[in-house]
């Protein structure tokens, strides 16, 4: 559910929690795993529980809760408790905060007294954990402590043994050591979470004084989300695969247009450093056993060169699967899943392009599609805080999982086909503006003729003044196409220039930006071209394809538009004809062309 995916609107979740719960429980065909969770709190836990339930349901876990009375966590854990015993908890969550620390150091305390207070506080918890795990033999999640709200000595508080900051940090270290030496015991790191959202946002004391919440109510969704992530990880519901786009996700720029030498990766520019840092993060995920795959709309041989650069941190052999082609990405994801013998819901799909994210959301339910946005400096933060790969157990198998799957991937698998790609395109609500050149776009059109390498039939370059000359000359047909969809304006993305000779239109230039590939924009341009040719009473259109190192993807472009091949020379240059004297059926069925929003 989108509302429950990071980054979420916490206040919205709190306000709508009843409606969200209803929605989650009414989804058809979802099989929930039941789980009995005992929350033993040193603070009020009511909303922590309610919001946690939403995040667990979203992970297909249906919790049943036992909740201790306010601040009865110790008593519930240590003393015979029929109600808790008959509840038979399958997981126990100790929800405590620094308000539960009974004895902080006083300024006059000797070192021995401070150490005794530290040990005393820790032992109270340790005894409780030992007792509970012997009694209930189930996983335990324990909050560590958030930093104190005030620092009596200011900065000295951090290192002086009398400082609360110092005391809490030492206590957290003892908790960590216990976790490191005990199976089935997990720390919920509220110390880190409080720093992420800011201590003032985390510990608003009015919530403590009014309702005995150690964590501010607006911070509860963030808190509960993180506990739910630990639980779903314990329950084996982590994601397993990170599937990555390439252009503007793994590096800056479009490798098909810019070339491997000119993409942004490495240490030369600020942007290339950002992408390098992201690649390092991704590579670290691999060391945790996360499988890496590529899903990119590109020419395979061209795109792989980006990963073969010496300064690329990720290399082709870091990936267990690479789908680099012009197929819909949803199909690539499903194919990859079946090759790896995994379910699509094990996948996290990272792509800077919102339209690609949307197609995965619509076509591959269950796959996670984080809103990583299009600012690469935020990719790590969003992926990391989403908790897809929350690690509760790190086994030897995890560490070598990539090798296992690399072998699996070698097996081919059946391809799934989608019947409803057109429906997806329609859902994008695309509006095309397809017209003769206008002064406002002359510069952009000239730029596009110089930047486009992949979707470029003739690779003819124009200066702005040449574009203006073409536009002014009645012997030319000049058409530009601009595409808007529900995610925004893609700008001018396609240009066609035809030269009229002897009642024939000879295509000098046909280009399109790859970002709108497979959206039927090429069809809409064809429709506009045919319309204008017919209006001028022309007999045929003659198309030319001149192969280059980069434009292989449009080798069959004219055939797909209904042209007949007339000739081909030894270099692969082809000439095509389209007959204008017969009836023409519009090829674009999904883009609204030249309609204002009012229509």
């Amino acid at each position, binding site marked *: 559910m989108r509302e429950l995916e990071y980054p979420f609107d916490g*206040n*919205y979740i*709190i*306000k*709508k*929690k*009843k*409606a969200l719960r*209803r929605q989650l429980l009414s989804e058809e065909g979802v099989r929930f795993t039941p789980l009995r969770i005992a929350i033993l709190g040193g603070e*009020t836990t*009511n*909303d922590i529980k309610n919001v946690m339930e939403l995040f667990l349901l979203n992970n297909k876990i249906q919790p049943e809760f036992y909740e201790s009375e306010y601040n009865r966590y110790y008593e519930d854990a240590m003393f015979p408790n029929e109600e808790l015993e008959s509840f038979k908890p399958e997981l126990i969550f100790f929800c405590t905060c620094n308000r539960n620390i009974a004895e902080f150091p006083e300024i006059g305390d000797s070192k021995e007294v401070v150490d005794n207070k530290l040990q005393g506080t820790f032992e109270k918890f340790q005894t409780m954990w030992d007792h509970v795990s012997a009694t209930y033999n189930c996983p335990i999640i324990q909050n560590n402590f958030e930093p104190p709200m005030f620092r009596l000595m200011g900065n000295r508080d951090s290192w002086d043994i009398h400082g609360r900051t110092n005391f809490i940090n030492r206590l957290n270290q003892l908790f960590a050591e216990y976790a490191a030496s005990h199976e089935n015991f997990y720390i919920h790191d509220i110390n880190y979470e409080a720093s992420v959202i800011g201590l003032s946002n985390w510990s608003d004391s*009015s*919530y403590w*004084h*009014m*309702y005995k*919440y150690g964590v501010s*109510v*607006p911070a509860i969704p963030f808190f509960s989300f993180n506990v739910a992530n630990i639980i779903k990880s314990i329950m084996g519901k982590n994601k397993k695969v990170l599937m990555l786009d390439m252009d503007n996700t793994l590096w800056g720029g479009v490798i098909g247009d810019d070339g491997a030498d000119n993409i942004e990766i490495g240490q030369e520019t600020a942007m290339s450093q950002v992408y390098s840092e992201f690649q390092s993060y991704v590579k670290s995920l691999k060391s945790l056993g996360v499988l890496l795959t590529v899903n990119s709309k590109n020419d395979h041989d061209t795109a792989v060169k980006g990963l073969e650069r010496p300064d690329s941190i990720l290399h082709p052999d870091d990936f267990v699967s690479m789908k680099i082609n012009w197929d819909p990405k949803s199909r690539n994801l499903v194919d990859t899943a079946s090759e790896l013998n995994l379910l699509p819901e094990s996948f996290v799909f990272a792509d800077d392009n919102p339209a690609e994210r949307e197609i995965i959301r619509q076509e591959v339910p269950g796959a996670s599609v984080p809103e990583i946005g299009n600012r690469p400096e935020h990719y790590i933060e969003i992926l990391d805080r989403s908790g897809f790969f929350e690690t509760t157990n790190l086994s030897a198998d995890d560490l070598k999982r990539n090798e296992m799957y690399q072998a699996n991937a070698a097996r081919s698998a059946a391809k799934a086909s989608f019947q409803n790609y057109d429906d997806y395109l329609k859902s994008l609500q695309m509006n095309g503006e397809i017209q003769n050149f206008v002064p406002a776009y002359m510069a952009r059109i000239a730029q596009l003729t110089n930047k486009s390498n992949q979707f470029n039939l003739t690779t003819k370059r124009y200066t702005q003044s040449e574009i203006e000359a073409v536009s002014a000359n009645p012997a030319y047909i000049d058409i530009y196409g601009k595409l808007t969809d529900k995610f925004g304006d893609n700008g001018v993305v396609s240009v066609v220039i035809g030269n009229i000779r002897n009642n024939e239109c000879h295509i000098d230039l046909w280009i399109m930006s790859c970002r709108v590939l497979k959206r039927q924009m090429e069809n809409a341009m064809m429709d506009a071209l045919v319309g204008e040719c017919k209006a001028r009473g022309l007999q045929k259109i003659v198309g030319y394809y001149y192969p280059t190192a980069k434009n292989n993807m449009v080798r069959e472009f004219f055939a797909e538009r209904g042209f007949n091949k007339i000739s081909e020379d030894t270099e692969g240059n082809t000439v095509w004809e389209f007959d204008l004297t017969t009836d023409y059926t519009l090829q674009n069925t999904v883009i609204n062309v030249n309609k204002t929003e009012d229509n």
Partner: protein
Amino acid sequence: MTKEEVFSRLTEVFRDVFDDESIEISESTTSADIPDWDSFEHINLILAVETEFGVKIPMGKAVTLKNVGELAETIISML
């Protein structure tokens, strides 16, 4: 913002928080009139009201409000 506007937006907040589209509120509405309005839901209600109107209701006020009319007046005084 007029009192009518405040009440109309408050009604939506109440309906969201208590997940009940039939809720109608008036100046004299109190927690006794809405079955789910206990002290836990009161916290959520106050937070939702604060978010809706972009105000922060002082702690002293939040725990002493007598009825919805007083809540509305508090909001108006802070806008």
